């Protein structure tokens, strides 16, 4: 059994990138709240914005109404804009009402939006002020999920970057060895913890933690792996804390996951045999689980519209592990530094596009006639009606896809729409 994923020499700079701007069919960063509020179980996300913000989160979340959700919007009205009401006092009033209703909340995020940024509402100052008032019971932090600053998953990046400065610094000069940054499904996180333990790494922190009080400790010299490709600001914040990035592919599929663990093994000088002992069974299971999907997908052409920034690692996954042929891989932002190993693995001739002019991209998609189109919810049904087979990209964000045990599920996300096409006789 060989574990082939070694970082290939980066050919990243050789890949031509098509840069476009125009209408973008992507969510803003507020959407991240939909999964972040489930991940951090005692955190509340208060968007300071407009009715549009409230409507967006509600619509993006489907009509998933939890008993009482841990997110809400403080809707700015004309009185606030006209200066008729003292906006700080209004915000304090709303936060007080909220915290009274929800005594279980330990961490409150004030989330900036397009309107709050345009009117230059200083939520950082507000968070500091409110933190003083409600400390030690509730810590109040802030970040921006505005569409003028962030797309979709960049909201998580901004949130985690805001968390980093508040991660504890261990006493007695202890240096926590390893941190994994990026919200993962609980099931994947637990699997990763077991594999790291098998490699001898028993003290691994995950950012974000599941509760506000258990955020992982960070010290200068702590090494960190990224579990998600969209964490530019988080990585920068970690670097500022003196943490050290371990360059790695992303843990998608058998090869990606093994490559990710191998990067950790290399960083900690863990022997090949120990890495193999910890990962081999998972690697084999992942391959086995992907096999039927590979049969269905091999040789099929796939087109990615930009959405979550997961597109490059996913294109690497479908080409390398499922034998698909990426035609165009669109991403809202291309973060070359973290994607070097993934881009290097894309087949020659793949078009990588950054940004979007949706009309022109649709033209290219129609021209290319791919077998499968990965796109957002606004485009999927119209493209199906034109005869394309589509996969909604948001499912790739809302479903556990990381790690060995989810590799088959990830492959199924791509094969199911194809399978469905073949089954339907109407």
């Amino acid at each position: 059994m060989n574990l082939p994923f070694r970082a290939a020499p980066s050919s990243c700079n050789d890949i031509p990138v098509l840069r476009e701007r125009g209408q973008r069919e992507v969510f803003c960063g507020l959407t991240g709240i939909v999964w972040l509020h489930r991940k951090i179980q005692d955190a509340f996300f208060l968007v300071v914005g407009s009715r549009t913000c409230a409507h967006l989160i509600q619509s993006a979340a489907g009509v998933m109404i939890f008993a009482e959700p841990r997110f809400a919007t403080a809707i700015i009205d004309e009185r606030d804009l006209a200066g008729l009401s003292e906006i700080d006092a209004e915000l304090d009033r709303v936060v007080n009402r909220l915290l009274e209703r929800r005594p279980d909340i330990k961490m409150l995020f004030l989330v900036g939006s397009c309107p709050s940024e345009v009117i230059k509402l200083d939520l950082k100052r507000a968070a500091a002020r409110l933190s003083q008032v409600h400390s030690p019971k509730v810590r109040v932090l802030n970040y921006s999920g505005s569409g003028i600053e962030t797309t979709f998953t960049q909201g998580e990046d901004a949130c985690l970057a805001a968390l980093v400065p508040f991660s504890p610094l261990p006493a007695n000069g202890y240096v926590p060895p390893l941190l994994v940054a990026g919200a993962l499904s609980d099931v994947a996180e637990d699997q990763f913890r077991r594999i790291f333990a098998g490699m001898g790494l028993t003290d691994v922190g995950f950012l974000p933690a599941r509760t506000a009080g258990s955020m992982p400790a960070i010290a200068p010299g702590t090494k960190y792996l990224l579990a998600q490709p969209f964490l530019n600001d988080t990585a920068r914040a970690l670097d500022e804390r003196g943490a050290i990035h371990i360059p790695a592919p992303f843990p998608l599929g058998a090869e990606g996951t093994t490559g990710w663990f191998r990067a950790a093994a290399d960083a900690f000088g863990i022997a090949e045999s120990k890495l193999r002992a910890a990962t081999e069974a998972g690697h084999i299971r992942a391959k086995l689980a992907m096999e039927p999907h590979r049969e269905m997908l091999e040789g099929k052409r796939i087109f990615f519209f930009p959405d979550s920034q997961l597109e490059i690692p996913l294109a690497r996954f479908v080409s390398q592990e499922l034998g698909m042929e990426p035609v165009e891989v669109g991403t809202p932002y291309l973060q070359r530094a973290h994607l070097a190993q993934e881009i290097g693995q894309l087949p020659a001739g793949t078009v990588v596009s950054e940004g979007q002019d949706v009309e022109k991209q649709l033209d290219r998609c129609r021209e290319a006639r791919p077998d499968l189109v990965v796109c957002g919810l606004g485009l999927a049904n119209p493209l199906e009606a034109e005869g394309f087979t589509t996969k909604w990209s948001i499912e790739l964000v809302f479903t556990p896809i990381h790690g060995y045990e989810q590799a088959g599920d990830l492959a199924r996300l791509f094969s199911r729409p194809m399978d469905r096409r073949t089954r339907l006789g109407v």
Partner: protein
Amino acid sequence: MQLTLWTYEGPPHIGAMRIATAMQGLHYVLHAPQGDTYADLLFTMIERRSARPPVTYTTFQARDLGGDTAELFKTAAADAYARFQPQAMIVGASCTAELIQDDPGGLAKALALPIPVIPLELPSYQKKENWGASETFYQIVRALAQPRREAEVNPRSCNILGPTALGFRHRDDLAEIVKLLESMGIAVNVVAPLDATPDDIRRIPDAAFNVVLYPEAAEVAGRWLERNFKQPMTSIVPIGVAATRDFIAQVAKLAGLDADAALKAGESRLPWYSRSVDSTYLTGKRVFIFGDATHALAAARIAKEELGFEVVGLGTYSREFARPVREAAQKLGLEALITDDYLEVEAKVAELQPELVLGTQMERHIAKKLGFPCAVISAPVHVQDFPARYSPQMGFEGANVIFDSWVHPLMMGLEEHLLHMFRNDFEFNDKAAASHLGHGAAKPVAAQATATQPAEGGWAPEAEKELQKVPFFVRGKARRNTERFATERGINLITIETLYDAKAHYSR
């Protein structure tokens, strides 16, 4: 600043999108930041539309704010015209663009496009979705309507105004009402906005009168047409048997026809189903009603007069239509709940302990949480509100649909009695849902009103035990009544005697 968990209506530009998406040959250029494109999925996913909404978003970002967002708007509008070649265009701003004050109307005018360009002023920080739909439709009609060609006007012709994209059952309501009008010998001149082109809008004045199906979207436009073209409009929304009959009479009068034939021909099964003995158990069921004003008002009338329910709560999130809802509530001896605060509605439902909730998707969740049966009667909509089958709310067929969809969630007649008699049966008890709803249906959560609890004392253990023998769907009511009875009489400890005294008192 208003704390909002869930919102009944989107911002006003969503209303404008509902008009634009309903129409053909119209394009909407919306000055908006990245992210506002989420609105497309409302139409493509919830309504399962097979085409993208005809909307171009300028998608400005922070780095554009220091530069020239106005230029970005002009480029987007020019490109949209070149690509889509619409017959007319509407232009406007979403909430963030409103703050940067680029004046999309003025910018679009400067492009001198060879088509009508209609500017929209939709104040996002004041108004909401239905207002936006109404204002947009009104502006389009106002901008495009041509002088009436008197010679062309068929005295037995009308327009149907109001159906939009993403409307609650608009597609099927429209089919039902067109069928009804045609059966009466009335010609439909234009239906708008649904499937209308700008050219169709121009011809609106050529009909004898207007049928305003959804006042939330079309009453303002209807009034303007009435003033400017002497086109009268209908005031009755044909939801329910009686309202449909009233509507037929009103339309017949406007068309100079005799209503009798249509009234005789029109048949709904609702009256007989409601009179048939199995429906006896519907008598006096306590219902809570909340929705947009049109549907809430219609539901109140049907509930009271056509199903024999008791309306215990009535409200709307449509502040623009608060007055008629207040009046209707007053006639029922109630105070209307006018709010767009979901939490307030939830508190009211918990307090009233109704036996059936008629509401929106929000109330469906409230009812599910509190364990009450529920039927959806109004937007905001969900993918389930666009059923594959034909299921109008309007007209005689609509009344049939309403009978089924409201009665279905309730316990069936005999089942209710058996449950009452054998309440300790091991498989047939409180925790079992109505048998026709399948197993594992939501089990009621004890959501007891605390407002009227006696200040001191409370329930004696044996009285509490006796209360458990009351079937769960009336237990909340029994508890409330007993507590009120005790409070009014200064009884500190509720005994079995108090329970039955109260029962006797309230059965009078």
